[in-house]
């Protein structure tokens, strides 16, 4: 009796057919459920990815910033100057105040260097006596014109584009200079 009932589904195709129909219907519904969720998931993830990757995709351009009248930089000296990050957000606080080294060669000839060492971004310090920039992290050193003097940095200091307009020193700034984007 038991064996008979056990064998029945195999023997009677009609019963199987009905079962198959039901199974295939459920299969379809399951697949549809999965499919709907794939579509919905994609729709949900698109804005998420867009939100996160916006900063990856959107590269902001540099902006012209005034470092003030050129008279404050005596000829033949290199001085620290500070500007406010043009992309400053109200809650940035003092992290928006960015330093840079201004070298006035003579007249309206200027070089403005980023504070960041080209090795790993540490703040270089200017020493007027030896006319060297020295980095406190891994010992990189640069000459007064920004060229590489010694240590691990792969290149000279990053330089801002400089112009003098109406006796004011203007630089193109706003980005953290890195090897990928040396002109800050």
């Amino acid at each position, binding site marked *: 009796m038991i064996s008979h009932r056990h064998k029945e589904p195999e023997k009677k195709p009609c019963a199987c057919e009905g079962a198959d129909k039901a199974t295939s219907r459920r299969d379809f519904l399951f697949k549809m459920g999965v499919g709907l969720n794939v579509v919905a998931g994609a729709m949900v993830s698109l804005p998420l990815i867009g939100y996160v990757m916006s900063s990856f995709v959107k590269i902001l351009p540099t902006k012209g910033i005034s470092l003030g009248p050129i008279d404050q930089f005596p000829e033949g*000296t*290199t*001085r620290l100057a500070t500007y406010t990050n043009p992309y400053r957000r109200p809650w940035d606080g003092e992290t928006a105040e960015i330093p840079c080294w201004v070298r006035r060669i003579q007249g309206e000839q200027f070089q403005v260097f980023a504070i960041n060492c080209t090795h790993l971004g540490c703040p270089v310090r200017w020493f*007027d*006596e030896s006319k060297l920039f020295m980095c406190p992290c891994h010992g990189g050193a640069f000459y007064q014109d920004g060229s590489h003097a010694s240590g691990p940095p792969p290149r000279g200091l990053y330089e801002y584009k400089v112009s003098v307009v109406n006796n004011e020193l203007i630089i193109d700034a706003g980005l953290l200079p890195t090897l990928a984007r040396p002109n800050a």
Partner: protein
Amino acid sequence: MKRSLLFLGFCAVLTGCDWMPGKPDEKVDKWRPPTAITDFHELYRENCQGCHGDGKLVAGAISLDNPTYLAVVPEATLRKVIAEGIPGTLMPPFSQAKGGMLTEEQVDIIVKGLLAWRQPLPAGTSLPPYSAPPGDATRGEALYKAYTDAIAKAGGEKMLGDGFYTNPAFLGLVTDQYLRTLIIAGRPELGIPDYRKVIPGRPLSDEDISDIVAWLISKRENEFGQPLSPDSVNTQIP
């Protein structure tokens, strides 16, 4: 045992762990900008000691606790030298306005601290003026000879090499005023006497000092070993 432990724990909770050695001390551990340092000794140690020594240790440049120097140097000059340096020499400017790291207040603190090192000189000491134009070089030659003899007598022969103060490279690195200061104040810590002890029995007069300086200036050369005319030498004061 249990009770005392409980008691200890209770105390710990009550005092908020404040008794523990790891608790940061706001006065010591809290960050202050370097421009907020107002302790003279700390400022001196960080900014002056390398070249000028610390009173006990001697260094390359003149010691700033030299009593004669402190007695003759005008306060305004001292301040100007620290703040602005001496252009063309190895004395760098320290005030931020001139590219240094110190605020005006910190420069003042250093000046005050140095002047606090002043000691009363023996009664009846007549100080030569801090600065004066150079005098008669020919007269200075003989005086300079006496000067170096005095050093040799005091056991300082080793210092007299290289032509001593007449070495052109040395002369090329110092101002006339520094020569004058050296003659007046000497460097007793090294065995170079001040103006009072050069000639036995009497101090060098203002005129003597100016003459020696004039003789030294006449020994200045350019980089090619040619003598310089006295007009073209570096006479920036201080």
